């Protein structure tokens, strides 16, 4: 018996010695998830990132497990897996884009992408929560409201034009749009367009993409160019948000994983940091551009000052809407929309919002919706002006682009346009028309130390915007700090007569 006790002891030792961990051979993570509900006659899209996580370069890898109804989308974008089989270097990646024909699948459909070595003996698949799990609900309703959030046509297209700018990555192309024109007409059409661009935001927020100095969210920063977007000086092209909060007074200091990750499946620090998820994302003005491109096939510049209307040559870097003169208009042709006046109406080119200054004019600020007056002076430290502007926020419309000239670190105004957000017209709350507090993202430097709170529950009734900074595209509260106190100007696209200039060909 003693002999067997000894054997049992050895076995126990062996178990300890071989305490090991699991590591996927191939990492499969969704970048764009397929919807969970859809209708017949739809072509849905899902995009997964595949990573060779073995220590070996591998050739002839099979992207397997395609049932009837799912096909691999071949693009000319080098980021994508454009063949099958594929070759991947050590830690090499590509994006698998698949289209799902809802007429060819069952009403309750599940599919898990799988990648295998050439002999199909070594395979990996996505986490169960990341697989396609789809319920079909009959024929697609044809009313406008039901189609506002349908981006299947846009998602099925190639997003990128193929040209790559070092650091910033691949450039977007204007997506084709097949909107029902009857949905866009009249005052109901305005509301429908507003809903559609908000739905575009909701879609991309749901994908939990990071903040990166990228033009497009389907571009991954090459390893050699990986850097922190929050380094001194703001980081260069390709930099992304990691260790985003270096403020020791912040409750988020050193928080390196996306704030709303569940900690389960692929929503873990391992996947965020080691398996590339943090290296996909867009910055603020490429985010606002992305939303309008997906909503309407409208492509404007993603460069922040230029999107606000300033000349790309930098000559207008310190000019705000109230400082415009007939000879110095902020009218860059690739900048979208028109400026919003103090009374909430849209500027008429050359009119300088005359007679439409509202409370802004009454307060001596000028006619535009801006905290910077005609002399270029910011009134961010004037509580009366700040309160006045807050009282006028109801005049903004969903989809309005709000430009910020402020220092994210300190919240203090800056001379240049530094940020852009999109107005949602919604407030934090628990009603069906509200943004639930649980959906409101932390705001990097907005802390109690700054007499500010980013938490949704602390901001019930507060106005909600959507923007990309900190850990990416999200809903955030339009706090005084950084946002309202640094409100440079507002531009409105929906309902305006603006169309992209004929010479507008922005990759930037």
């Amino acid at each position: 018996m003693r002999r067997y006790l000894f054997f049992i002891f050895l076995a126990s030792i062996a178990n300890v010695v071989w305490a090991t961990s699991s590591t996927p051979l191939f990492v499969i993570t969704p970048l764009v998830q397929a919807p969970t509900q859809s209708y017949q006659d739809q072509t849905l899209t899902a995009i997964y990132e595949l990573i060779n996580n073995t220590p070996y370069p591998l050739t002839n890898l099979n992207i397997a497990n395609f049932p009837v109804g799912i096909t691999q989308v071949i693009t000319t974008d080098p980021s994508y897996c454009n063949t099958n089989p594929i070759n991947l270097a050590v830690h090499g990646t590509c994006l698998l884009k698949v289209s799902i024909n809802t007429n060819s699948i069952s009403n309750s459909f599940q599919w898990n992408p799988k990648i295998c070595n050439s002999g199909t003996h070594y395979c990996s698949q996505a986490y169960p929560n990341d697989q396609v799990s789809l319920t079909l609900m009959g024929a697609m309703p044809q009313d406008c409201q039901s189609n506002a959030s349908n981006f299947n046509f846009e998602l099925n297209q190639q997003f990128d034009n193929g040209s790559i700018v070092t650091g910033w990555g691949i450039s977007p192309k204007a997506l084709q749009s097949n909107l029902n024109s009857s949905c866009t007409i009249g005052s109901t059409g305005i509301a429908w367009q507003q809903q559609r661009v908000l739905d575009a935001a909701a879609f991309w927020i749901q994908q939990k993409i990071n903040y990166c100095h990228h033009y497009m969210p389907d571009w991954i920063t090459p390893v050699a160019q990986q850097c922190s977007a929050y380094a001194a000086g703001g980081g260069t092209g390709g930099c992304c948000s990691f260790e985003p909060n270096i403020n020791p007074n912040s409750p988020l200091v050193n928080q390196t994983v996306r704030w709303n990750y569940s900690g389960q499946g692929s929503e873990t620090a391992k996947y965020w940091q080691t398996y590339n998820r943090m290296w996909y994302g867009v910055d603020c003005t490429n985010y606002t551009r992305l939303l309008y491109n997906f909503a309407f096939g409208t492509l404007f510049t993603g460069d922040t000052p230029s999107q606000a209307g300033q000349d790309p040559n930098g000559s207008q870097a310190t000019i705000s809407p109230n400082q415009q003169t007939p000879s110095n208009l902020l009218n860059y042709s690739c900048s979208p929309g028109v400026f919003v006046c103090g009374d909430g109406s849209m500027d008429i080119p050359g009119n300088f919002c005359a007679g439409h200054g509202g409370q802004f004019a009454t307060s001596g600020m000028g006619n535009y919706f801006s905290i910077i007056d005609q002399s270029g002076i910011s009134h961010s430290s004037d509580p009366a002006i700040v309160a006045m502007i807050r009282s006028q926020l109801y005049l903004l419309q969903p989809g309005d682009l709000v430009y910020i000239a402020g220092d994210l670190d300190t919240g203090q105004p800056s001379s240049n346009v530094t940020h852009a957000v999109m107005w949602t017209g919604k407030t934090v709350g628990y009603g069906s028309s509200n943004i639930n507090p649980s959906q409101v993202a932390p705001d990097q430097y907005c802390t109690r130390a700054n007499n500010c709170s980013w938490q949704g529950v602390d901001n019930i009734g507060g106005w909600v915007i959507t923007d990309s900074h900190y850990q990416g595209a999200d809903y955030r509260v339009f706090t005084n700090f950084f946002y309202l106190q640094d409100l440079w100007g507002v531009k409105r696209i929906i309902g305006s007569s603006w169309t992209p200039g004929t010479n507008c060909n922005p990759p930037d």
Partner: protein
Amino acid sequence: MYKKILLLFLTALTPFISHAATTRPIVSLAYGVDYIHLPSLQKDISLEAPFQDTYISPSQTLHGPVVGIFLGLESALPWDLLGQVGLGYYRPQILTVQGTILQFGNPDYNNKSYQENIQTQQALIEFKLLSTIQTRFPLHPYIVAGVGESINKSYGYTETPLAPYVVVNTDTFANRTLHSFIYTVGLGIDVDVTAHVRLGVGYRQIELGAAKLGTMPNQADTNVLSYNTLQTSEILFNFTYVG
């Protein structure tokens, strides 16, 4: 080898036949528990370069029931001894062996576990020498020895993913049956309950020989999951009928 065993068996039968007047048939049913020890296993197996899996199973001792039957003859021997010779068949539990698979032999890629079954059977020519201690119920301390063959079948290889993203190999190692020469020694004690019925308890050890799975389709080498020596110890309770 087996011819020699048969010859030995027939030779052993000779005195029983020659002492036919005192020779009695016996049948004994055995039930007990066995402790089968498997040595540790670590084996590298390649399917396709650069993939190579290391299969690891720690040394382990598994226990479970064993049943058996012995058919033979018993004859009185000099010095108040009894001798038994006959054929025994024993079938221990099915062993379920579990181990881990380290892909690339790297502990970081501990993505799958595996399981296989081993069924052993033993056919033995057994020789049992009993003495008698006269008490109210006569006691028969004995020693037993045997030679024969074990039939070790390795089968039912399966893999289990250790993480949701792991897809197990659909190919499996082939089932395989090995035959090995084995021997056993043991001791115990029987007690006469009636003139024809004995109950007993005994202990014995057996070297069961090797157990190996076959290869897997598309395997790049010829390595297999193998245990060269299975050792078992058995505690058997016997019900013996003496004719």
